[in-house]
């Protein structure tokens, strides 16, 4: 059922531009006057809008609130300033458009297209000019000039990229290091209080940072790699191998809070399922199995921080993380 007559198809003949239909404003001078009044009213509304705008800016105090349906209670200064501006602009536009539609001539005009392609003689002339110019430059006969020019331009073009070197330091092995060392105390975030195991109830969580020595300031850079989540389960709920079990303490387990997928904070702990959920892309980690990924796009479990208690009974790290925290990168070897 397709294309059978395609060879013999001709268009029905073009009936040409349709007859012009006059608008009421073209034939009836009273209608035209009415349209003129309408345009004037629209422009006047715009002026009122500007007045409202100026009034709001100067005389409505910034801490007044007003209740309106749909928007609810909102700041009156903001609202009327904006409404005034909106009115002022909108009705100028409406006035201009209404004027064009009703009063300006609406006869369709025809203009003609030229072919985009230049005329043959123009193209020939261009080709001739270019050829002559190239011949005059003489690059064809003087390859030495061409080659050395290429080298010079290439060098000067690329070498300023060198100036970008100081945009930042080389990463080195920084991506694999955090501030956690053997013996670093776990402290609450915020508050910087050290934590005893008895502080955490079964089913409880704590947001934790490494303790900083007095004088050292914690920056966002540090938070971006040091953040740790402490979760307490009953020891029998763990499903870990001996080594990972030795990194826990009486049912308390610590994970890097920085998602192994793209670096959001994974702090959403579901007490009933023992799962951690990252709210960015819904990667789900099973705490009982050392934060193994059970759903979502994350490809690696969250690094586990080995913990124990120090002589005063506070929770400390046994050792730094055994792998880099956060999202993956080329040099990451696991």
């Amino acid at each position, binding site marked *: *059922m*397709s*294309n*059978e007559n*395609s060879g013999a*198809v*001709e*268009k*029905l003949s*073009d*009936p040409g*531009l*349709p007859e012009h239909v006059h608008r009421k404003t073209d034939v009836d001078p009273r209608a035209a006057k009415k349209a003129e009044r309408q345009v004037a009213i629209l422009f006047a509304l715009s002026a009122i809008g500007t007045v409202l705008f100026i009034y709001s800016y100067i005389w409505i105090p910034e801490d007044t609130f007003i209740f309106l349906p749909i928007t609810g209670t*909102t700041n009156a200064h903001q609202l009327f*300033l*904006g*409404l005034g501006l*909106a009115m002022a*602009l*909108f009705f*100028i*536009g*409406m006035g201009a458009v209404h004027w*064009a539609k009703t009063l*300006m*001539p*609406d006869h369709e*005009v*025809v*203009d*003609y*297209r030229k072919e985009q392609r230049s005329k043959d003689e123009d193209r020939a002339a261009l080709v001739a000019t270019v050829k002559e110019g190239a011949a005059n430059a003489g690059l064809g006969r003087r390859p030495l000039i061409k080659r050395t020019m290429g080298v010079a331009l290439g060098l000067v073009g690329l070498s300023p990229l060198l100036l970008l070197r100081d*945009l*930042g*330091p080389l*990463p080195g092995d920084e*991506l694999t290091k955090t501030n956690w060392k053997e013996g670093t105390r776990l402290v609450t975030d915020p508050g910087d209080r050290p934590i005893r195991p008895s502080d955490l109830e079964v089913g409880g969580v704590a947001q934790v940072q490494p303790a900083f020595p007095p004088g050292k300031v914690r920056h*966002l*850079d540090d*938070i*971006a*790699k040091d953040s740790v989540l402490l979760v307490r389960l009953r020891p029998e709920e763990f499903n870990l191998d001996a080594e990972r079990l030795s990194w826990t303490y009486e049912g308390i387990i610590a994970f890097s809070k920085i998602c192994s*997928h793209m*670096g*959001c904070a*994974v*702090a959403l702990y579901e007490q009933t399922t023992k799962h951690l959920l990252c*709210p*960015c*892309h*819904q990667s789900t980690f099973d705490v009982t199995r050392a934060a193994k990924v059970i*759903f979502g*796009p*994350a*490809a690696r479990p969250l690094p586990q921080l080995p913990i124990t208690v120090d002589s005063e009974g506070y929770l400390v790290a046994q050792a730094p993380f055994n792998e880099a925290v*956060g*999202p*993956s*990168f080329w040099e990451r*070897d696991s």
Partner: protein
Amino acid sequence: MSARERLAGGTANFIDERTGAAKWMKKTLTKVFPDHWSFMLGEIVMYSFVILLLSGTFLTFWFDPSMKEVEYEGSYEPLSGVKMSAAYASTLNISFDVRGGLLMRQIHHWAALIFMAAMVIHMMRVFFTGAFRKPRELNWIIGVALLTLGIVEGFLGYSLPDDLLSGTGIRIAEAIIQAIPVVGSYLSYFLFGGAFPGEVFVQRIYAAHILLIPGIMLALITAHLMLVWYQKHTQYPGPGRTEKNVVGYPLMPVYMAKAGGFFFIVFGVTAFLGAVASINPIWIYGPYNPGQIGAGSQPDWYMGWLDGLVRLAPPIETHAFGYTISWNILIPGLIVPGIIFTLLAFYPFIEQWMTGDKREHHILDRPRNNPNRTAIGAMSLTFTLVALINGGNDLIATHFDLSINQIMWFSRIGIILLPPLAFVITKRICLSLQRADRELVLHGRETGRLVMLPHGEFIEVHEPLSPEKAYVLTQHEQNPPLAISSEDAQGVANPQGIKGRIRTRLSQAAQEQIAKPTTKEVLELEEGQH
């Protein structure tokens, strides 16, 4: 001569004596523009860009792009004394301590959302009507470049206040950069001046956001408009409209009034949104802290499809020889978008290759008359829509009492199955519409009036179409598919080989149409009785 005429004449003389502008001015003021509402979508984009420039400039007078830590001392009580970056504090300052500041911030952000939305709709209009065909392929490529730049510009823009929501987005962007093989960690350290988040990225994206990208966009927009100007705008098929003319209204006065008026209307509607609808309330989000996160964190809508793709990616990473490649980040974050935008940019040439049609086109296609292209468009939109919806899966889950796990699986399977389904359904619908058009031309419009003939038969009265309507329904071209033979008369195989065969198959699919009625058929019917 009145005083006004003398003043105008004097000014015109002054300019003309120095620039010779009179001839160009005359040509310009009488230039003809066709009038259709779908041609105004590009105008919405253009005017939104101007609004962004104006409101953005206002904001730069108060914004401080520094990431230095400060303690907040402004008038918003719930953040009093909280440590934050100067950028965040200055944004709070604009919102609460500069009169009209919050309004301008909101107008700027709403204008950005409308800018991107109008760009997408404009692109869809151009695509579905085939306006990208020769000689307008370059303009299409410029348009795709503007779309890409717009997405980046918007992302950088809402990340300037350094709040918790946008900071999370920057973290995710950094993870994508870091995941790039070989150079990822270096690129990340260079862009952020060290480890994430560092202290320089806000001022660097500020430079990109207020100078570099707007500069490039302005140049591209100028080129885009100049091309439209010189090539003259396309027009919909209709009586009196041919490939060799443009029918419409002259620039002065009608088009100036309508288009100029529309600028004020767009500005007015954007200002209205800025007045009545809250957008990006950064004071609720709090300053960025990499150890904090909020449930239901999404980027702005034009990045939402990227977020959706990242969410539904399977968790694949390869580790070999001490190196890691994160396919779960690279594929949805860089590779798939890269492929999509490349195909998008080169689509005019792909279509040319498929159909073999290398002529100029100035009359637009009705989408139903090119079922293949329309179906491809529907397919791409379905893909993007599934990704976009998945980007909001946690909000959809809480709102409609669903499970994020189920929505994720729906999206993972849907993004593979739904686009081809959309393709097939759209193509069949287009062909049906063509059939309906054919019936309309051959048999006229069914009026629903029943008439009993003298001998007892009931017939429905069909009203023949007006010549204008019949012309619109039949003026399109239906070209035969490419017939690339696999061998010539002497049995020599076609050197194009498999490429040629693929091309033939694609061309046949592309040219599948319902044959329009021939003039002969119509005339025969007109002579007969109904």
